[in-house]
C-alpha cells in the first residue's frame, strides 16, 4: 500500500526544527517516525504522521514549504538477512531506492519506510512476494 509521507524544508538555523514540531503538536498531528536529511545549508525533514493532510495544510498555513510524497512501508521480521532479502526483490524488479529509514520496532518485527523510484510498482512486487506493506489506515491507528 502507498502511504503519504510529510516533508518539510528547513533552514539550518537554530530553533527551526522546534518550530515545525510546535505546529504539528498544536494541531494534534502525531509523529510516528522522523528522518532528517541535512546539507550545510538546509535540511529536509521527513515524517510519517497519523494525519499527513492536516500536517501539510497547517504547516503551509504557517509559512513552511511542506509537501506529501508517496512511500512504501514494509514490515519485516526482526532477524538477520531479512532486509537483504526484500532489497533483492526490489532491485530485481529494476526499482531503485531513493532513501529509507526505520519506523518502529514491535516485538519480533520491524517496519522500514522506503522511497523508491516507482512506488506503485514496488508495492505490487512486494505484495507478490508475500511481503506485508502497511496502509495509511494502519499508520493512523499506530
Amino acid at each position: 500500500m502507498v502511504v503519504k509521507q510529510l516533508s518539510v524544508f528547513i533552514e539550518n538555523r537554530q530553533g527551526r526544527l522546534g518550530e515545525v514540531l510546535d505546529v504539528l503538536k498544536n494541531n494534534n498531528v502525531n509523529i510516528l517516525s522522523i528522518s532528517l536529511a541535512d546539507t550545510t545549508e538546509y535540511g529536509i525533514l521527513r515524517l510519517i504522521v497519523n494525519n499527513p493532510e492536516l500536517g501539510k495544510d497547517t504547516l503551509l498555513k504557517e509559512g513552511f514549504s511542506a509537501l506529501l510524497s508517496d512511500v512504501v512501508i514494509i514490515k519485516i521480521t526482526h532477524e538477520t538477512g531479512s532486509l537483504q532479502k526484500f532489497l533483492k526483490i526490489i532491485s530485481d524488479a529494476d526499482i531503485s531506492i531513493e532513501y529509507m529509514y526505520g519506523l518502529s520496532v514491535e516485538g519480533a518485527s520491524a517496519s522500514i519506510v522506503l522511497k523508491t523510484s516507482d512506488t506503485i510498482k514496488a508495492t505490487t512486487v512486494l505484495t507478490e512476494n508475500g511481503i506485508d506493506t502497511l496502509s495509511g489506515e494502519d499508520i493512523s491507528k499506530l
Partner: protein
Amino acid sequence: MDIMVVGVGGQGTLLTSRIIGKTALDAGYDVKLSEVHGMAQRGGSVVTFVRFGDKVYEPIAEEGSVDVLISFERLEALRYAHYVKKDGVIIINDCRIDPMTVVTGAKSYPENIIEDLIKSHKVYSIDGLSVAKELGNSKVLNSVVLGFSAKHIGFTLEDWLTMVEKTVPPKTIEINKKAFLAGYNKYEVFMIWNKEIECMSREDVTLLQSERLVKLVDYVYNNVEFYRKKMDAVGVKPSDIKDIKDIVKLPFTTKDDLRDNYPFGLFAVPHSDIVRIHASSGTTGKATVVGYTRDDLEIWAECVARCFSMAGVDKNDIVQIAYGYGLFTGGLGAHGGAEKIGAMVVPMSTGNSKKLTTMMVDFGATAIACTPSYLLHISEVLAEENLLDKIKLKSAICGAEPWTEKMRKEIESKLNIKAYDIYGLSEVMGPGVACDCEYHQGLHVCEDHFYPEIVDSATLQPVAEGETGELVFTTLTKQGLPLIRYRTKDLTSISYDKCECGRTSVRISRFKGRSDDMLIIRGVNVFPSQVEAALIDVEEVTPHYMMIVDRVNNLDTLEIQVEIDPKFYTDEIKGIEKLTKKIGHVVQQALGLSAKITLVQPNTLKRSEGKAVHVTDKRKLY
C-alpha cells in the same frame, strides 16, 4: 647641481662626497669638490660641497642655493639647513651624536629637529645605522645614506653601483653595494611625472580648464546629438560658456544616459576614429560602453603614468598588473601607464594567485597594481608558501574598489611595502583619474583632463570646498566619449590646498560612500536590480531576495538568499541542489560574478514597507 654633505667625523661623509663627485664626472659633468671646514677626525663637524654642471667656477655654494643637503646627523642638518634653497631637499640620517657643547652641558640637544625642518623644507629621513646593522656591518652606513639620496641627485642605478664598486675597498664591494641598494629601495619620495601640469599655479590651471571647457562644449554641441538636445532644452548655447565657472550652466549626464544611448550613441567621433572599446556592467544588465580614440589612449597612459610615479614607480621597476584584462578598464588601463613610464610590465591579469606569487619572486617584481582585497589575498598566499622574505615588492597601486585606511596599513605591514590608492571609472576613462601620493592626504586629480565638482546629490547644487557631496566629472580633453558633468554617484569632498608632495592639483578625499545602491564586489560593479531582474526568470523562487556581501580571508564574498516557492518545493536533496545550481548560473550570467545561493523558507526574508532593503554589506568599506 649643488650638493652638500654634512656629518660628524668618522661617519664616512668624505667617501660619500667622493662617490657623488666621481659619478658626476663619469657622466660627463664638470665637478668641483671641497671640504670646507671641520676636520675629518672623529667627533668634529664635517662639511663638503659637491658641485657639478656643464661648467662650475666656484667650489663652494652660497647659502640658500643648495639642491640637496645630505646630513648624517640630525643636529648637523639643522645647523646647515639655511644653505638649502626653497624647493631643495634635506636628507637626514636619523641619529643623534651630541656635540661637545651638549656633552659638557653648556647647551641642550634640540628636540623635534625633523618635525621643525619639515615645516620649511622637503625632508626625508632614514635610520641608516639600523639598516647597516641589519646587513651586519655598521661601517656601510654611508652607502645606505648615499643609496637613499641617489634618486634626488640623478644618474642611473647602474652608474651608482659601478662607482661604489670602483671607490670602496675591494673586500667591501659586495656589502657596500648591498647597503646602497638597501638605502635606494627605502627611498620613499618620488618623481613628479609632469611637474609643469601637476605643480601648476591655481590661476594657470583655471585658465587651462576654461580654455578646454569652451572647446569641449563647442565640440560636443556640434558632434553629439544628445548634448545638443540637452543644451537646447535648457537654453544654453556654446557661446554662453566662457570660462570654467560657467560649467554650472550645463546639464548633468548620468549612467542612465549612457545606457539609453547604448552602445555608441554618445560617441563624438566616427567609428573609424575609435581604436578601443571598454565596457562595464550597467544597472539592468546592459553594459555601459566607452570608446577611445588614439589620443584618448595617449592621455589615459599619461594620467596613469602620473599615478604610478606618485607610487614611486619608474623605469627601473618591474610591475605586475593584476587587474583583469579585457572589457574591464583596469588591466589595459594600468598596463598602458606602466609601459609609458618605461617599467618592465608583467601583464598577469587575475585568477592565478600561485603563478602571480611565483613570478613575483622569480622576476623580482618591485610593484603591483591590483585590487586591495586581492593584494591582501596574495599576501596570504605568499605567507603560506613562505615567500614573504623572498619578494622585492616595494609599492602597490590599488584601486577598482573602495578600501579603508586601515586596510592600507594592513597591506603595508603584511608585505612591508607602500600602498597607494588609485581611482577611476570606465565612463570617465578608467583607472588613473586620481591617485594618492606618499602623504596619503587625498587623491590628486588629473584636473587638466578631468574637471571635478562636488554637488549635493539631492539638489545638484555645488557644495562648499571640504564638504561632502557627489563627485561630478567633466572630461576636458576626451574625443571618443566626452562627458559633460557626469555624476559618478561617489561621495567625497574636495581640497585645493597645496599638498606636501609639492603637487598643486586638486585632491578628493577617501570615498565616503555612494549616493546610489551600487556595490563593488571583487572589482565588479553590481546593482541589486540586476539580481532582481535575473530572479524574475526563475519561477521556483519568490521575488524576495537578500544579498549579503562580506569579506572573508580578504576576498569579497556574495551570498544571495532566495525564498523557495512552496509550489515548487521538492523533498529530494538532488532536486534542491539542482535548483540552487540553476539560480547560481542565472546570477553568474547577470552579474559576471559567482555567488553563493542559499535557499530559505518562504516568508522569512524581511519585507519592508517603502524602499526594500536588499543588501547587507558587512565589509565596512567607508
